[in-house]
């Protein structure tokens, strides 16, 4: 240990004349030899400084929350937000269990845009979905005229004037088609050959037989879909999502399979068969009542159906959602790429239509004052404030 060198480096450091290289040298010396710290201690003029117990408690709290999930919640009053007029009339902030009320009046309809933002991303105006036919042919729905799209055996596929897809007819054997709806594409509405209606969210797909043959009607989805099933006891309708199998017993239900499979029953009855360890399905299943949900492997009662079906109603609906979940939803819809700059551990509650440009959605969050956004092409930076 070179005491002289250490003395010189410490002197330069506290007098702010040390170069970056000298400071690096000093940190390396500290790491290499424990006696260096003792030497520095003898050189420093340390004045005792007073910290209040409260200050220390606050610092300890801050450290202990770092490896624990977030507890902060911010909320904009859902009732104040109209379907077309997007306004945050009141914001309620609940902070670590202590209620702090903050009122702000914002009317985003007056063309307010996100500050420091030069570009914007509009809501999807068209549907960019694609059907992959059994022979591998890809049909891009936005590039074909309305009317008959394809003929497979005796099954015709039609695109209606309002953009719906309809399968009609019968086939003697099972032939699969896949409908894929990419990110940044409007919800697509399809009627299968048995009359079952399916709505498909952005970044989602469904694989289905063009005509149902045999003793079951089985489809497979990724992402999120809503089903209005034409019930047929002799041919149960089954949806496979991730490893979960959902069986219709006369039903309208939503399946969100972006991450853990979340099945929510709106009307009727469904049975959810969860995967077993050996890769099969637990045949007993869990029978859901309307308003109930299976989230992963847990049964949840009394869910907020408006939130579950918000996508189908062309709306974002957040309830105690953190920015990561919120940005997930925005990425699928606006086809953007979120970039988090720092920790954004806040939770938001509120609703807004999905038809406005992204800047108007982001402005709602910005107005609460805890986060800022910067849009640059498809990249959206999320910057916590304060």
């Amino acid at each position, binding site marked *: 240990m070179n005491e002289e060198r250490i003395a010189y480096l410490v002197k330069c*450091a*506290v007098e*702010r004349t*040390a*170069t*970056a290289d000298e*400071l*690096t040298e*000093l*940190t390396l010396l*500290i*790491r*290499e*030899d*424990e*006696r260096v*710290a*003792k030497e*520095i*201690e003898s050189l*420093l*003029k*340390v*004045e*005792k*400084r*007073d*910290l209040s*117990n409260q*200050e*220390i*408690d*606050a*610092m*300890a709290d*801050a*450290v*202990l*929350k*770092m*490896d*624990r*999930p*977030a507890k902060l919640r911010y909320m904009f009053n859902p009732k104040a937000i109209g379907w077309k007029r997007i306004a945050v009339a009141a914001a309620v902030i609940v902070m670590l269990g202590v209620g702090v009320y903050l009122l702000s009046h914002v009317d985003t309809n007056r063309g307010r845009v996100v500050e420091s933002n030069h570009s914007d991303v509009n809501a999807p105006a068209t549907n960019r979905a694609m059907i992959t036919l059994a022979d591998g042919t890809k049909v891009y729905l936005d590039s074909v005229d309305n009317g008959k799209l394809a003929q497979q055996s005796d099954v015709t596929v039609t695109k209606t004037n309002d953009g719906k897809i309809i399968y009609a007819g019968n086939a003697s054997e099972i032939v699969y088609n896949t409908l894929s709806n990419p990110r940044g594409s409007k919800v697509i509405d399809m009627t299968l050959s048995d009359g079952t209606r399916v709505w498909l969210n952005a970044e989602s797909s469904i694989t289905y037989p063009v005509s149902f043959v045999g003793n079951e009607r089985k489809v497979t989805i990724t992402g999120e879909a809503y089903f209005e099933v034409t019930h047929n006891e002799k041919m149960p309708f089954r949806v496979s999502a991730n490893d979960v199998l959902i069986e219709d017993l006369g039903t309208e239900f939503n399946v969100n399979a972006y991450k853990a499979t979340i099945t929510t029953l709106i009307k009727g009855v469904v049975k959810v068969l969860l995967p077993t360890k050996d890769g099969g399905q637990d045949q007993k299943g869990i029978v859901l009542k309307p308003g109930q949900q299976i989230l992963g492997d847990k049964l949840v009662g009394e869910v907020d159906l408006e939130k579950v079906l918000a996508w189908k109603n062309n709306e974002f609906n957040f309830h105690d959602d953190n920015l990561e979940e919120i940005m997930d939803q925005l990425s699928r819809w606006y086809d953007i790429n979120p970039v*988090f700059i*720092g*920790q*954004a*551990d806040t939770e938001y509650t509120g609703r807004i239509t999905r038809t406005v440009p992204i800047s108007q959605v982001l402005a709602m969050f910005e107005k609460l004052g805890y986060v800022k956004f910067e849009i640059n092409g498809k990249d959206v930076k999320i910057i*916590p404030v*304060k």
Partner: protein
Amino acid sequence: MDKESQYATNNELLSQIAEGDEAAFRQLFHQYAQLIHSHIYSIIKSETHTKDLVQDSFLRVWIHRDKLPGIENFRSWLVRIAYNLAFSYLRDKAIHERGDTKYAVKYSKSDQHSAEDDLHLQTLQQIIRKTVENLPPQQKKIYLLSREEGLKIPEIAAKLGLAVSTVKNTLGRALEALRGAIGEEELWLLVLYGSCLSAVASHLR
């Protein structure tokens, strides 16, 4: 009371912290906050960033909790960490003032912000939470039982029907992942076992 005896009774406290005991950690924080704060301030002379670095120092204590009972002299270990962070901070600042943007990203520019809001701490928090989120399922489950439900190692073992040693090792691996995530793994090994290394080094000389 002289320094050594004041800090000599810490072994039990360190063992409790190793079990994930938050109250014990708070007690330790209270014992050393003043000391670490004074030392860091004497180097960096910025009230706001001193608080930030005090928290950073104790964060490193917290994510090394499984190793704490093995530390011979906790006080000098902690002081060493604090010095390392303080001089690293000055280095980042010097680089920034030379026109590099690293400092701007790592620390908030203004001294007006409170320590809790500092970007540097926020970034650490984000990294740590993300790492916890992405731990392998069993590690994550055990880690969250410890952190969210405050269960002690034997309680977690009983709840999950696992051996105490399995839970202990799993928590250790989770903490290792956290240390790795903030990129101080190597430094920490050096800090922890520095005395052995310097003994070897002086022997070689």
